[in-house]
């Protein structure tokens, strides 16, 4: 209606949570919202949070699926501590998400779903829309189900169920209106996704438009918010999840090394998406192998590495446990493989869809015998791309298995990613010998490179270099089976030295903030975002605190000890009960390390870390 004119307000950032039943399509809604925001040039960070049951009982708290997006005109490193806006599709979603909402926040609620039975399923004894319990919030009551049905009533060939399944696009359309987003990215997606089902395309598009127009024509929504483009480095951006970034990183590394990418794996939450993405890249010489179990996943990977591929296996905590013995075989054979561990809540089956950083010590020590393996941890969803490339680079450099640690928060979460200029990524040099390296035409499979200590990677099909590798103790150089005490000692020393020497080659540790001081926060992996944001804010407020984010965990950066020595106290926030801190104490034991631990399945908030920093500094 032309007589209402919206008012525009500029804001820096908004955190919005879409919450509904597992079947309500909230993950899709959130993904669409973030894709469009990324296209509009906002910085984004997302946090999908869903139950591990595929369809938990409808309407219950257990079945609530949420997707939080932080979109901003400034740099954001986390999906936001608390949503300012909640889109709640049913009473259970409202009940589950309300405690997280900022006080005075905005709630957009589907009133049609607040039936007596849904209220009961959510455990409400009275209707929160009527009993005044939402008085402190701005509540938009939208009869979403009925309006969506009305909007779609003229599209032929749709079942009632199909109509209701478009509700999420109605909600998306409404939020697009409120936050001044374009519809075209989502429309294009709908058209491609449902290309074979024209009536579904029509239905979803209509629902999207209907939601948008509802906002346009409703007085309550005449304040529209604008979030300007973020000042991101120039380039082409796309939204990327950590698992997608990992897949693309592995692919890039293989291409840079001139190798086939072999990915042998077994489905496991939250790592399976890496397999899903890679299985669509056959045109880049990617061979995915869905094995019969975790062990076969890594076994096939070792076979592929023997054959000369860039060989990778992916898993999550329980799967890493199963791969243990084979990881050690790769270590003994000295074949380059990458093991990607997208960590999840443990122990045992734990919380498959929730995040944790509790496999660090498993990655470090969870094998029989003396078995050092390099470990690299990704710090953000987009960074999974670089971390994956680096993991491959390290594996190929020293002929060793390498563990790359990601986690559910990074793997499923998304942020804008500047599509790199692939030419700017240096090639990965790989050589395969073609001539014997020993006397009398003998090939010595364990004769090491004097600098890197890597053994030569001779691959089957090369005449004259036939050799046998095995997991038994071996003689240096020849690799022949040997139980000689000196041989065993020497080989174990060499494998340890090979990993330790990486520190000379890997970059030095950087410090954010002052180089010396009272308090240094050391983080690793996905706690980067919350930690860096907290430290940034503290510094902006005039606090003296610094941050070192450790990317290489084995070996540690060569200057880490020196950095630690420059600070009085070290705070170590981790989503585990204190694992990096064990390693830090083992290496740099004389310092005061203060643990900050959390295993709730949820990432740290900026606020939590900031409060800890402030309280430590207040103690003086």
């Amino acid at each position, binding site marked *: 209606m032309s007589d209402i004119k919206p008012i525009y307000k500029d804001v820096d950032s908004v955190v919005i949570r879409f919450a509904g039943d597992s079947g309500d399509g909230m993950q899709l809604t959130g993904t669409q919202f973030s894709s469009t925001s990324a296209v509009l040039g906002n910085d984004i960070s997302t946090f999908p949070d869903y139950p591990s049951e595929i369809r938990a009982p409808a309407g219950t708290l257990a079945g609530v699926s949420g997707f939080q997006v932080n979109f901003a005109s400034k740099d954001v490193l986390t999906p936001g501590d608390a949503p300012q806006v909640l889109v709640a599709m049913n009473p259970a979603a409202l009940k589950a998400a309300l405690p997280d909402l900022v006080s005075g926040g905005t709630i957009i609620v589907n009133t049609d779903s607040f039936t007596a039975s849904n209220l009961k399923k959510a455990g409400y004894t009275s209707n929160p829309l009527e009993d005044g319990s939402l008085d402190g919030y701005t509540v938009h009551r939208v009869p979403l189900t009925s309006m969506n049905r009305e909007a779609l009533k003229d599209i032929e060939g749709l079942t009632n169920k199909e109509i209701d399944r478009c509700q999420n696009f109605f909600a998306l359309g409404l939020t697009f209106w409120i936050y001044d987003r374009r519809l075209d990215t989502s429309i294009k997606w709908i058209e491609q996704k449902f290309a074979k089902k024209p009536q579904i395309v029509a239905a979803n598009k209509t629902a999207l438009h209907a939601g948008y127009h509802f906002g346009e024509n409703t007085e309550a929504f005449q304040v529209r918010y604008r979030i300007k483009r973020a000042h991101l480095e120039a380039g082409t951006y796309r939204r990327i999840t950590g698992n997608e970034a990992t897949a693309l990183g592995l692919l890039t590394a293989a291409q840079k090394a001139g190798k*086939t990418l*072999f990915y*042998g794996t077994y489905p496991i939450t939250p790592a399976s998406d890496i397999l899903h993405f890679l299985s669509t890249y056959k045109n880049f010489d990617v*061979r995915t*192998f869905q*094995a*019969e*179990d975790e*062990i*076969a*996943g*890594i*076994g*096939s*990977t*070792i*076979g*592929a*590495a*023997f*054959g*000369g*591929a860039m*060989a990778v296996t992916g898993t999550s905590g329980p799967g890493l446990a199963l791969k243990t*013995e*084979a990881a050690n*075989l790769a270590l003994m*054979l000295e074949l380059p493989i990458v093991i990607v561990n997208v960590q999840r809540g443990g122990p045992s089956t734990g919380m498959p869809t929730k995040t944790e950083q509790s496999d660090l010590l498993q990655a470090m020590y969870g094998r029989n015998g003396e078995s050092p393996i390099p470990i690299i941890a990704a710090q953000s969803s987009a960074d999974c791309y670089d971390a994956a490339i680096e993991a491959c680079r390290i594996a190929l450099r020293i002929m060793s298995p390498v563990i790359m640690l990601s986690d559910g928060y990074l793997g499923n979460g998304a942020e804008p990613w500047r599509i790199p200029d692939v030419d700017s990524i240096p090639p990965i040099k790989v050589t395969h010998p073609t001539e014997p390296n020993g006397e009398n035409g003998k090939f010595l499979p364990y004769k090491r490179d004097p600098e890197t200590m890597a053994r030569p990677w001779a*691959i*089957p*099909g*090369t*005449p*004259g*270099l*036939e*050799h*046998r*590798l*095995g*997991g*038994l103790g071996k003689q240096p150089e020849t690799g*022949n*089976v040997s139980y000689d005490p000196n041989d065993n000692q020497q080989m174990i020393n060499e494998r340890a030295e090979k990993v330790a020497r990486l520190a000379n080659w890997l970059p030095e540790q950087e410090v954010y903030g002052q180089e010396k001081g009272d308090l240094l926060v050391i983080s690793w992996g996905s706690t980067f975002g919350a930690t860096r944001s907290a430290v940034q804010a503290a510094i902006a407020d005039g606090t003296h605190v610094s941050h070192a984010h450790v990317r290489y965990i084995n070996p540690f950066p060569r200057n880490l000890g020196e950095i630690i020595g420059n600070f009085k106290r070290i705070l170590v926030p981790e989503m585990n009960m204190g694992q990096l801190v064990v390693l830090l104490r083992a290496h740099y034991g004389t310092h005061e390390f203060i643990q900050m631990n959390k295993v709730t399945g949820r990432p740290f908030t900026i606020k939590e870390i900031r409060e800890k920093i402030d309280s430590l500094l207040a103690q003086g």
Partner: protein
Amino acid sequence: MTELKLTRKDFVSDQMVRWCPGCGDYAILAQMQRILPELGIPKEDVVFISGIGCSSRFPYYMDTYGIHSIHGRAPTLASGLKLTNPNLQVWVITGDGDGLSIGGNHLIHTLRRNIDLNIILFNNRIYGLTKGQYSPTSLPGTKSKSSPMGSIDPAFNPIAVAIGSGATFIARTAATDVKHMAEIFRRAAAHKGTSFIEVYQNCIIFNDGTWSFATDPKTKHDHIIYLEDGKPLIFGKNKDKGIRLNGITPEIVSLDEVDESELLVHQESIENGSLAYFLSQMHH
């Protein structure tokens, strides 16, 4: 293509063979080294991958590429290798414990996928390397270190397992029957898809004589039948006995009483999975 002039010696590695004197493994190794030069494949394209156990030392003794991997997992490495380089001829060496116990899952799935690999399962019905415990192919009642009063577990029939897994080439031979074994190796090498070979192998130390019914010249003719495509099932020292199907049950008949035309005729075609299953269940 230049003709390859390979000999048995080209496939013999410089490592000392360390099986017990009299072990059935020696004959298998010798036949493999004998037939490989005949296949016309450059030796750098041949790979042996094994798991753990006495039999799994095999790759060390072959002068080809090879991996002595971990217990039960050889088929997984072989699969990854073959998928990476389909040009290679990949052999998997396993045993009854390695292949059917700890590695049972890999074996069945590898057979199901039918990647072009050749699997040889050395069946000695005992754990040799760990010094004599009963294995998944040990007959119930087997007295062993871990079953002093006789084992109670029923035994796996490797051939039936392979059939159930959808294998496309299945054969059984005995390490003592070197000619037949060599021929089976050649056939397996030629087969495109996963080949599965069970070899009756005697462990002289822990299970001596377990196959003597099928290997002892005095008794074997009454216990084994050579299966040949399109030929009736006839056996016995004097070739005077045959197998006839009675309903769905195979039975032994005397050729003095029954005409050859009534006998079961062997068909290698994979469509005949049910026939193969009958055959796998026959023992005498």
